[in-house]
């Protein structure tokens, strides 16, 4: 959308700001004064399509597609540097999460494909055992997301293995049933 010479208001989603605002964590987003503290503090800003500050200006103007398709959210390492420094106390990291979820929901998370796979595998494991099983998580993830690259992960895996830091067997919690009931209820309630 940004390639266009002139942008028409009709092409924008003028409710986008309100949509993000209504999410938990999005409350302060309207107070953004575009100071750029977030971008300056972000360890990943240089790699991003749009550094965090610009993401907020795009949200404000209604560039929904541009925001959801950008790689920005997927490069966020959740370090919260931006969030603690933001002079308006915007929960920037939480907004990034919200955008990730929105992007996945709308099938715009191209860059987030790997993150989605990782997350989904993780979710699957928790459903299965109640806890994460790092060995299985890594194996599954590598095979799904990086099948052609799987060999490159072996040295790190071996290092953990030989040092006795990669348990082969998963641990299953006792009351898995209870956890599943909770999770089923969440499915019922739907996300906020």
């Amino acid at each position: 959308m940004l390639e266009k010479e002139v942008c028409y208001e009709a092409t924008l989603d003028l409710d986008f700001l309100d949509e993000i605002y209504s999410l938990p964590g999005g409350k302060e987003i309207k107070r953004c004064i575009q100071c750029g503290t977030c971008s300056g503090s972000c360890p990943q800003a240089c790699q991003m399509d749009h550094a965090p500050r610009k993401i907020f200006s795009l949200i404000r103007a209604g560039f929904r597609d541009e925001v959801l398709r950008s790689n920005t959210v997927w490069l966020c390492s959740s370090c919260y540097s931006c969030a603690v420094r933001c002079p308006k106390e915007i929960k920037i990291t939480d907004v990034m999460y919200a955008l990730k979820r929105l992007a996945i929901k709308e099938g715009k998370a191209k860059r987030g494909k790997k993150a989605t796979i990782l997350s989904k595998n993780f979710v699957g494991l928790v459903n299965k055992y109640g806890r994460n099983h790092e060995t299985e998580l890594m194996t599954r993830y590598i095979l799904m997301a990086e099948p052609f690259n799987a060999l490159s992960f072996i040295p790190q895996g071996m290092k953990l293995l030989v040092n006795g830091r990669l348990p082969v067997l998963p641990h299953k919690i006792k009351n898995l049933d209870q956890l599943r009931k909770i999770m089923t209820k969440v499915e019922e309630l739907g996300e906020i």
Partner: protein
Amino acid sequence: MKYTYYPGCSVRATANIYQDSIDAIAPALGVELEELDDWNCCGATAYMSVRELMSFAISARNLALAEKYHRDLVTPCSACYLVLNKTNHYFNDYPEMRKKLGQALEAGGLSYSGNINVRHILDVVINDVGTEKIASLVKKKLKGLKVAPYYGCQIVRPEMGFDDPDDPKSMDILIDALGAETVKYSLKTKCCGASLMGTEEKMALKLCRELLADAERNGAHCIITLCPLCQMNLDIYQSKVNSLFKTKFKIPVIYFTQLIGLAMGVKPEKLGMKRLGVKVSGEMKRIIEGA
């Protein structure tokens, strides 16, 4: 001092050496950790990207379980610390979130009041045990050992922590109390990129390189950390950083609990020191084995 203990998945797997060192020093520090029965995954960062409510719900089960103990909930994992705290925070600050979480917990026959205090084990060691007590337990001089204290992100941010988000000092004063030397470490709170290691590996490795380079520049013999993810990233991936960026880092990355153990004269094997990705060598080895 008795606490409810929430180890988290990593501490029971890739970070089991963290658990070993905690077990080795806790009695001497007078810290009793009673493990939260049947705890489950904290919900973790990765979950958050896909399902927010689900993440909080899973997390909330732990908090609900912990409430029966009437004690602070202590975790050694920064990620768990953040997620559990965040769950608390959202539970208490967003009525809609509280309502839905309440309903979900109810489905599992649980309830939560929102009053569990979640703390990091470093907080307990520094603020409950205190450096005076720790200093009195030091048996082995670590004089000359230059240590870079690496705090990472999640215990100091976002502002729910017990220390300054830009310039935390807890581990600095701990190092002093142990008789070692704190090196200037400007990047002490910069992100190591752990959460990106799976998905955006190169970028994560780049962040690791910066951290390792700053430690080396400042003459550190080792880096101490308090987070399983940071430790794994900087330790296990150090060789990958070296091969990608043609660097020659050989900096052991250990848990602060391991350093306490060493100073207290606990055998390195008992602290999991032998199971590090980057082994102790050179000057650090001399200092630890000497004296």
